[in-house]
């Protein structure tokens, strides 16, 4: 199965939505999907964070996109290296997000067929 890894490093709407737009598309094409959240991108998976990131004209809201990719079997990984930088802790994150570090991202990226950065 082909695999796509997406580096989600921003909570700016025009950067926060594309990982989910493309990621849900990858799932529709039966690809494996890993989303790696770091720096301000951690706000996407922070409790209450996604609801305030809005993009008019998008197919869904960000919380709906998160549910869609989770139901599709995506793995959501929060980068613990960025926790002290953006003042985030594991308990601040929504359910279903695993915490990992740089080695996980590098290993996932090395195994992936497609790596995208936002």
């Amino acid at each position: 199965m082909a695999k796509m890894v997406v580096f989600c490093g921003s909570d700016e709407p025009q950067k926060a939505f594309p990982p989910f737009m493309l990621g849900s598309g990858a799932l529709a094409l039966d690809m494996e999907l890993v989303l790696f959240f770091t720096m301000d991108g951690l706000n996407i998976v922070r409790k209450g964070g996604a609801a305030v990131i809005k993009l008019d004209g998008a197919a869904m809201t960000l919380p709906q996109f998160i549910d869609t990719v989770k139901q599709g079997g995506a793995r959501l990984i929060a980068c613990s290296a960025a926790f002290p930088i953006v003042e985030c802790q594991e308990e601040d994150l929504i359910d279903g997000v695993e915490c990992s570090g740089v080695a996980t991202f590098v290993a996932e990226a090395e195994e992936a067929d497609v790596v995208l950065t936002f």
Partner: protein
Amino acid sequence: MIAVEELAKLIPDKEVDARGVACPGPLLEAKRGITTVPVGGVISILSSDVSTNNDLPRWAAKMGHEYLGTITEAGFWRIFVKRAK
């Protein structure tokens, strides 16, 4: 692909209305819809997103389904896909 005249006579097993939804909404609706018909069944996806006209044939080819063709309606498209597996 089948001729548009033949397509127009085809009654799909399931119609999915994804009009007014931006990409990738119609694609995700197609993915959901195809599983609701048996192998050999046909779905039609109603979409007003122009890029979906290119996306769904690509998706069908990649997933091993058969893209049958597209009918242009007033302000939207009716895209037919046959479930092949």
